[in-house]
């Protein structure tokens, strides 16, 4: 990125985008994260993982959470899913405080966590079965979602016969079959190669556009966050706290061409400065010694 390129401010939005955000904020709040804090008791004393996390997720909104490593992204999503407990604050779903895991908050994990002993169909049927639905009902439900992620040819395959991208599609179908109020995704495409990842992002966008679903998505990939999200919650590390909540100034749905649009780059630059501060400490620099012969330079 050349320095001379004049980028617009990431805060400036077209009227249509401005209007869309206004409509989003009028929708009911699905998830209300109110003053969340979390401290661990480690060997070297008390570690504050999260401090005073506040944000609201509106219905059918797509929210991304990004931050440098160690900022407590995973702790945050685990608390939202009920797999971990906050030391202060509360999580409210549709206005009611929740504690412990439940089918109203579906979760997609980075390492798929499909049940290896169940076929694709049986994996997707797991949630409906746990709700006490009849086998036939669950099966029909599962088939619908398997078809939606384009894996109907594989419904009788076992997870270890599928590729990483296909596994994650099954995991998404399994979560959606439960019809949760919000889908929490913890770096779901982090283990995939770049091509599959781009494909999965497009799939997820299609699902989000066509299904009544609210998504909270954790990633460390800045482009992924801008491409998918309505708003991006940027966390800061030590302790994990909100640095800024950015409204992405691009109209939905996004296309691959958006990756080089000035507004995208402006947002990207802002995220870069928030997550990777421009100044480099002396201890971060590698102690380099010149080990090549004169005249042997690469430049």
């Amino acid at each position, binding site marked *: 990125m050349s320095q001379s390129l004049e980028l617009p401010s990431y805060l400036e939005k077209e009227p249509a985008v401005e209007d869309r955000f206004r409509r989003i904020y009028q929708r009911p709040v699905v998830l209300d994260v109110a003053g969340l804090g979390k401290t661990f008791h480690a060997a070297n004393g008390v570690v504050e993982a999260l401090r005073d996390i506040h944000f609201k997720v509106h219905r059918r909104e797509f929210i991304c959470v990004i931050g440098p490593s160690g900022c407590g992204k995973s702790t945050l999503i685990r608390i939202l*899913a009920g797999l971990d407990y906050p030391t202060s604050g509360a999580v409210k779903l549709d206005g009611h405080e929740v504690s412990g895991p*439940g089918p109203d908050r579906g979760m997609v994990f980075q390492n798929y966590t499909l049940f290896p002993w169940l076929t694709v169909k049986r994996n997707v049927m*797991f*949630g409906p079965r746990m709700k006490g639905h009849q086998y036939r009902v669950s099966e029909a439900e599962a088939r619908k979602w398997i078809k939606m992620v384009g894996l109907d040819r594989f419904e009788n395959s076992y997870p270890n016969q599928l590729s990483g991208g296909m596994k994650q599609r099954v995991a998404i179908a399994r979560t959606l079959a439960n019809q949760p109020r919000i889908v929490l995704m913890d770096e779901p495409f982090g283990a995939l190669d770049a091509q599959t990842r781009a494909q999965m992002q497009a799939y997820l966008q299609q699902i989000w556009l066509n299904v009544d679903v609210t998504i909270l998505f954790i990633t460390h990939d800045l482009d992924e966050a801008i491409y998918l999200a309505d708003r991006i919650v940027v966390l800061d590390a030590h302790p994990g706290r909100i640095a800024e909540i950015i409204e992405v100034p691009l109209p939905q749905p996004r296309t691959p061409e958006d990756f080089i649009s000035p507004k995208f780059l402006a947002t990207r630059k802002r995220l870069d400065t928030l997550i990777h501060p421009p100044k480099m400490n002396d201890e971060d620099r590698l102690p380099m010694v010149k080990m090549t012969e004169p005249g042997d330079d690469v430049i």
Partner: protein
Amino acid sequence: MNRRPSWLAIREPLSPRKATALKLASFLLPLLIWSIVSYVPFIWHPMILITSAGDSDLFVKGERFTRELFASENVGLVKDGLKPGEGYRVNPVFLPAPHEVLKAFFVAFKTPPYSKGDPWLHQSLWHSIQIIMWGFFSSAILGVPMGILAGTFDAFSKLFEPFIDFIRYMPAPAFGALCVALLGIDDGPKIAIIWIGTFFQMVLVVANTTRLLDVGLLEAAQTLGASRRRLVINVILPGILPNLYNDMRILLGWAWTYLIVAELIGASSGISWFINQQGKHFHFDNVFAGIMMIGIIGLICDQFLALFSTYLFPWLPNRRGTSMMTVVAGAFLFFPQRYLWQRGRDKAAKRAERQSSGSIAAKPASVATKPFPASIHEASAGGAIADVSIT
């Protein structure tokens, strides 16, 4: 460009042919060494088997003496002008040759016991298998659920495991006297020894297997709405099943090792009684045959369970290469069948030849099978098998 696969490539699987060859060699090499020691006289053969005692009053025909003793005795005899003893070099009585053991393997089943009323070999074997099964299953019925509970709930882990860890270090045979005092001298104490030998290990092994289940699966199931009971039944149980099955395979092997001690407690019985009895009568070919029978039963059992697991757990990735079971099955089934088939074809061809040459004397071809000796069935009616029961 075409890399030639090496026999000693680090952490790379061999080609199926090489793998099969080595699997066969792992059995054939020890057999080869045994054969060389047995059949090549100058390798070891430290004894002389007397064929003629001569004028010696020391030598007995058919007995074995060390070469040194044989030589010095003969030197003395020759010096005194007496007829020296004759004999040939043999191995000690405790190392029979492979063919003798192979013969004993088949003959042992047909040889009646030394005293009337004692069990035949097949009865002893069956008795041993029953002891193992009772001991193993009674420990599994309690041990597996306790292990799963301890691996799932920390409360049970803390309640069970410290005491079990303590008992685990007490060797099972040490409980022999106690078991006899409590349960009598018949099968009760034997089953109890196998129970003690496997149960405590089983709880700890199963608990550990349960703990190894990916926590991610439990968390995923929870976010899908699984209750605590559902987690145990629908996630933990199916999740650990393949590893549990493997644990059971290994622990069944342990049960066999405890069997030998168990059977010598109280009134000795079963295959180890047979081995001991044969040892007392210096029939070491039978001793070897008995030991090998245990090994073969164990191997076949284990390989069968391994083969069966691929059908039980179709989701597991397939292992490459021929299984040991295929090799064993091939060795035991394929070759004799093919041989018989070949012989049948030869016979048919001969018959056809004879018929075409105009001879009417062709007899109907019947497979010549020797009837099993009737005496075995008579003996089993004598009630030689003690009733197997947990008292």
